């Protein structure tokens, strides 16, 4: 019950004559059962395109992707094999939630009684008869998740499931993903929010500009990419910097005027403090700054972001 991609590539043709855009660039990955695999990357990195290829909606330019060892389209009853939450809006606004699930069930020979079960499961049973055009974004997401679970599938694919959900809804999705994985299912969840993935996923697949940047467990990702440093402020920064370098530290001077600071790696905060004390120096600040998972993600994907915000802006919001 795995999803397996091999040299999967998708190139979109550009406007006449131009080169076009490679959305997914020869990626290999395997999504295994019994755990939540987070598919993480900035907007435009190729997540949705990859998921559409898994579901046979987009045809790969080259390479292959299989589910349980066969092409999606060869499944005898696809909804009973893979349930998918597609991008929000794959619904007709004039149809009720129950009717939407009814046609889906009919298309795959899923018993009618299952419709009521999944409506209850996602908490939409009270509004099942309402037209989905009146639903909030969050209710639409819940309906999409109900559709994904309709066929009780061993593989569940969720594209940006927490989009538009309130905090209670986000917690619910997190719990649901966990439970599905604990039942032995293959759970493949995409998000552009690192913090969300850190809470939900067991395993990470990081994608940027159509390439896989990391394929590892969450703790391994942290250890490798979430670097920390010691921030030091002092009256004479340059002298202190040279002193610390002599102790074997890597020192970078950042900022100017009253905001000037040293960023020290290679020495712990106590070691920096002791070194300064031995030399009789005054320190104004000595802080261990641990990079968040978000920072690690930003560092890793910095070169792989399709659309950069201005760096000044980024600094201002820190």
């Amino acid at each position, binding site marked *: *019950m795995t999803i397996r991609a091999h040299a999967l590539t998708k190139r979109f043709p550009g406007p006449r004559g131009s080169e076009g855009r490679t959305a997914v660039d020869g990626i290999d990955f395997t999504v295994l059962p019994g755990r939540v695999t987070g598919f993480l990357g900035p907007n435009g990195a190729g997540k949705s395109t990859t998921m*559409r290829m898994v*579901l*046979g*909606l*987009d*045809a790969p330019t080259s390479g292959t992707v*299989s589910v*349980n*060892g*066969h092409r*999606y*389209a*060869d*499944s*005898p*009853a*696809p*909804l*009973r*094999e893979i349930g*998918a939450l*597609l*991008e929000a*809006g*794959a*619904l*007709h*606004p*004039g*149809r*009720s939630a129950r*009717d939407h699930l*009814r*046609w*889906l069930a*009919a*298309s*795959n*020979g899923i018993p009618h009684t299952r419709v009521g*079960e999944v409506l209850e*499961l996602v908490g939409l049973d009270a509004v099942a008869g309402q037209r989905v055009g009146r639903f909030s974004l969050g209710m639409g997401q819940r309906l999409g998740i109900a*559709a994904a*679970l309709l066929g*009780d599938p*061993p593989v569940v694919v969720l594209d940006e499931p927490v989009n538009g959900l309130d905090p209670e809804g986000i917690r619910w999705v997190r719990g649901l993903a966990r*439970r*599905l994985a604990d*039942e*032995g*299912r293959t759970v493949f969840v995409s998000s552009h929010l690192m913090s969300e993935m850190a809470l939900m996923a067991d395993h990470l697949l990081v994608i940027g500009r159509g390439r896989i940047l990391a394929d590892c467990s969450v703790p391994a990702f942290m250890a490798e990419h979430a670097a920390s440093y010691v921030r030091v402020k002092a009256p004479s920064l340059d002298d202190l910097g040279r002193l610390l370098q002599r102790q074997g530290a890597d020192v970078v001077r950042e900022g100017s005027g009253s905001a000037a600071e040293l960023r020290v790696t290679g020495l712990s905060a106590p070691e920096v403090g002791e070194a300064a004390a031995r030399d009789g120096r005054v320190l104004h600040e000595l802080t261990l700054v641990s990079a968040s998972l978000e920072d690690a993600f930003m560092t890793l994907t910095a070169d792989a972001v399709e659309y950069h915000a201005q760096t000044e802006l980024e600094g201002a919001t820190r």
Partner: protein
Amino acid sequence: MTATLAPEQTHADGVPDLPRVGFGAALHAEWIKLRTVRSTGWTLAAFVLLGAGLTVLICALNAEWLASGDADESPGSFITWGMLLAPVCAVVLGALVVTSEYATGMVRSTFAAVPRRGTVMAAKAVLVTGLLLVVGTVTALLGYLGGNWFLDREGIGMALEGDVLRAIVGSGLYVAGIGLLTAAVGFVVRHTAGTISLVLAVLLVVGNMVMLVPGTVGEWLEKLMPGNAGGAIASPVPFNPNLLDAWNGFGVFALEVAAVCLLAWTTVRRRDA
């Protein structure tokens, strides 16, 4: 989850041992979709109102004149008159069944549920064609019953046989073809307004404008335009003597519809959803 995961039986090639769902399931799903949006009811109501209502009205207004010696037209031209306009509703229905899915993005849910796109297209085609065949024939029959009541009062009623019967069944066949043609165009164009405009333009505008092309070329273009070729079967007496006769015309129309369906299939089969 309410149910725990049952151990999957799989074949050696990895395809799980589930009962394969096919055309019947896809047709059932499309039938649920069609019944559960309001536009279907509105469009069919407008269809019956135009197709039967206008025929009755026009027969009621003209019965006396038709029975008089001044009439230069046959009552047969009037008995399916509303079916000249009802195809507009068939165009709307045929378009909505397909293009509303593209407009809302629901087509991705559809192709994910039934990945064999030909099956989806065939299910929609069978549904639109079958529904319009029944509704079209019944509507033409209602128009005949209502209209003929007024004609009978003037002593010029027509029996339900021969060309009259053919025109009533033919009305159903023609609007079924129009619905199928529009659905196929919808799969290629993917926009509701674009699809409806394009089909109506070909049926109503271009079909008449080709008469302006001089010579034999113009004559044949006029005969072969889908609205002109297919429409003749829906009237007991020909409106335009230059056109093909009812069944030959319908044969040409059917081939044209089939060609557009083939184009739609080859387009949708390889296109990203």
